[in-house]
């Protein structure tokens, strides 16, 4: 058999992740946290200065998301940005920004777009970070274990919530009570109950299962824990942290001067 050629080796403890495993850019979770934080701080201020800064912010967030390997999502966001900019410069001036229709359009296209790039950054943070890598990085920052656990579960749980919700939606469709705007507005309480009750009950169940699994793997162990992956700050991480903090500080100084 061909598979006997390579002897099975136990994974080494404390090894650093390869770039294939982290998905694209080899950034440490700490560097990512600083990056996302600085982006969130600066972007909203920068948007008000000029549209070219807004486009730059959109582009940066999309490049990072692409580095996490989510090309389909990047394509979708590109279409969204292109469409909203097109609307901003064609439809809204035509309708007149004082008219009701123009107002609703600028609400949807201009105001909503402002919230998208930081959302993409959060998405990048969640999608490109392995749970073990995140915990290892947080523990190296001397964060309490409780905080590391909660954040790791939080990160891990966003995709789960959306999966659960998709399953609930198809189950509702199957039962003949599809989740449509009409149903939502005619029976808001009932529709919400149909959505939230399965979501809560499955989440409660996942919560207890996750606790059991984590405790089996030694979450309650009091001494120093080893990790399969080790978070290491490299040159690229220092560069990323330096650039993020540098831009934020320069921006704040420039704004208040």
């Amino acid at each position, binding site marked *: 058999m061909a598979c006997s050629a390579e002897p099975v080796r136990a994974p080494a403890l404390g090894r650093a992740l390869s770039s294939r495993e982290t998905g694209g850019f080899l950034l440490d979770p700490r560097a990512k946290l600083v990056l996302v934080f600085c982006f969130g701080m600066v972007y909203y201020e920068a948007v*008000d200065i000029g549209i070219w800064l807004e486009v730059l912010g959109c582009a940066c967030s999309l490049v990072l998301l692409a580095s996490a390997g989510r090309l389909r999502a990047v394509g979708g966001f590109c279409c969204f940005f292109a469409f909203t900019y097109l609307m901003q410069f064609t439809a809204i001036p035509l309708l007149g920004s004082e008219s009701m229709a123009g107002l609703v359009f600028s609400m949807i296209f201009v105001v909503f777009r402002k*919230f998208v790039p*930081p959302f993409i950054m*959060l998405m990048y943070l969640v999608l490109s970070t392995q749970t073990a890598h995140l915990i290892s990085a947080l523990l190296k920052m001397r964060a309490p274990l409780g905080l590391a656990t909660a954040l790791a579960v939080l990160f891990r749980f966003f995709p789960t919530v*959306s999966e659960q919700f998709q399953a609930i939606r198809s189950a509702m469709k199957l039962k003949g009570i599809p989740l449509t705007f009409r149903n939502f507005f005619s029976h808001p309480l009932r529709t919400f109950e149909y959505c*939230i009750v399965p979501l809560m009950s499955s989440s409660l169940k*996942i919560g207890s299962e996750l606790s059991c699994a984590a*405790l089996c793997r030694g979450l309650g162990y009091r001494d120093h824990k080893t990790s399969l992956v080790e978070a290491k700050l490299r040159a690229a991480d220092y560069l990323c942290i330096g650039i993020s903090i540098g831009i934020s500080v320069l921006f704040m100084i420039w704004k208040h001067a």
Partner: protein
Amino acid sequence: MAEPSTKKVTGAASQKTAMSKNFINLGIFAAIYIVVFSAVGMTGLIPIMMLLYIAIGCFFEAIVVMAMLTRVRCFGMYAAVIVLMGIVLSLSGHGFYALLSAIVFGLLGDFVMSRGGYKNFRLNQLGYAISCLWTIGPFLSVLTDPVGYWASIAPSFGQGYVDAVAPLFSIPIVSGVVASGVVAGFLGCYLARAILKKHFSRAGIV
């Protein structure tokens, strides 16, 4: 002599286990809380909903919080959920006041809940209603410096938009919106209790 010390270790270990479970549940419920509030917040794009979505959000979040309180009964956990929400809001452009008010009102609400050991419905309801006051945070950056705020967003959003929306962010209207959130949160607890009783207690889940 050996027995008491063994007991002590077991006690500490089981406490540690309970804390680990609390933190896992905290992560899960924080995720649900953030997702539900963001989903409701999306409806704020429709002009009239802008004034209503806080009340709707506080009303429906009551179920999430009440379900959480059946699992997590430890001081600081509920406050941590609100603080995480505040962090997400601050990072998504609602200003640092969002985080500040989340810390203050989250702790205040948690304190009231803890007086009843998280089991007293009245105190839980009161604590939740108090913690709903955190929704004032995102408005504070507008209220503290209205002229500067509107002048700064006018270039990117258009003067027409600013002229139409700015009158909505007066102190009476914002207090009305936040107060409606508190009242809705208070009433939402009744719905939460009914739903938990109907679906979870009978099925033996909580």
